């Protein structure tokens, strides 16, 4: 991304001429620096913002031109300004992104209230009411209280496989009962 030594020396010479009042050389310098700025900025910024950042970087290079004497290497000076503008741009971007976020309080009246019961069909007790008492106990122990099939079997004096079969049948009955 950094041009070879000769190009950098040319840019320095153009800059020095520009600082002596040669507008054409300075315009050429800026025109040649613009693609460098674009490449440096493109590593962190994409899309339509890239053009804006390149222009901001060129304006900053112009504003800060008194801090460059035309003697030391030019590219570190240019790239530090570009990086500064990119960081500045990203900081503003993320700050504005936070500002554009929708406050949930402002739209709460348009949202359904998820804290209230939404109807009998979702009532666990009603669902369990569709299966025999024994299967109700098995489902409650396994899916509400979190016991394993083996532990449920021990408690209800059943084999583990029998518990699994009973739980499966109960779930099937519930699904059929509430199928729309």
């Amino acid at each position, binding site marked *: 991304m950094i041009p070879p030594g000769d190009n950098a020396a040319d840019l320095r010479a153009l800059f020095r001429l*520009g*600082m002596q*009042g040669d*507008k*054409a050389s*300075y*315009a050429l310098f*800026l*025109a040649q620096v*613009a693609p460098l700025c674009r490449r440096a900025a493109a590593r962190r910024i994409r899309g339509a913002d890239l*053009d*804006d950042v*390149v*222009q901001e970087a*060129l*304006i*900053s290079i*112009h*504003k*800060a*031109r*008194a*801090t*460059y*004497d*035309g003697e*030391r*290497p030019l590219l*570190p*000076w240019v790239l*530090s*300004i570009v*990086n*500064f503008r990119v960081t500045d741009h990203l900081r503003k971007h993320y700050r504005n992104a936070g500002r554009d976020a929708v406050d949930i309080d402002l739209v709460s009246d348009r949202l359904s209230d998820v804290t209230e019961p939404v109807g009998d069909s979702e009532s666990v007790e009603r669902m369990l009411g569709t299966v025999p008492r024994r299967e109700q106990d098995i489902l409650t122990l396994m899916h509400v209280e979190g016991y394993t099939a083996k532990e449920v079997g021990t408690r209800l004096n059943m084999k583990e496989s029998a518990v699994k079969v009973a739980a499966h049948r109960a779930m099937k009955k519930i699904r059929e009962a509430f199928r729309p």
Partner: protein
Amino acid sequence: MRDIDTLVAELSSDVANKRAWQRAPAALAGKLLAVLFIYGAAVQVHLGLRADLRLQFARPLFDLEILLLAALALSSVIAATIAMYPDAYQKPGWLKLPYAVAALLAVLMIVQLAMPTDARMVMAAPGMIAMHCAMCIGWVAMLPSLLLFVILRRGATVRPLQAGIFAVLAASAIGCLTLRLSEANDSLAHLLLWHYLPTLVFATLGAVIGSRVLKW
């Protein structure tokens, strides 16, 4: 926004309005240090010197502390000057110097805490209200901080936060140095709590101010 060609044409038509700085940062730092030295001397005349200063200078740890405070002011001014250039005048190592000196000063104070008290050290009376020390450092630092911020604004720093720290650290170091030479109190707790902790707070404040006023 405009397209790049239009912008280049606009900017190049304005190129003759500003000349490159002819002086290297060392020259600017030298001038600033001279001004700060004169200011520090004037403050010292106003505050006076502690009566036992000659005795204190016989203590190597006191000498070292004074040297480090002077080094903190010196390195902070140099770092602030370097920070005015977007590329740190391609000497980024200089920007770390004030932190290194501040760390050495902290080590010196902490090491002294573990050492037996030197009989030549003057201890303040217990319960002494020492807020005036912090306020004195703050007042002394105010004018040079302002001067440094004005000068820093003429540059194009890409490190506004750090530049703010350096400006206030340089000014506060002068406040600490002059106060240390005038106040007959060598209590380490006092120095840490009422001299160096406020300096740290001021430097933090400098970072906040720097990040706001040194934008360009």
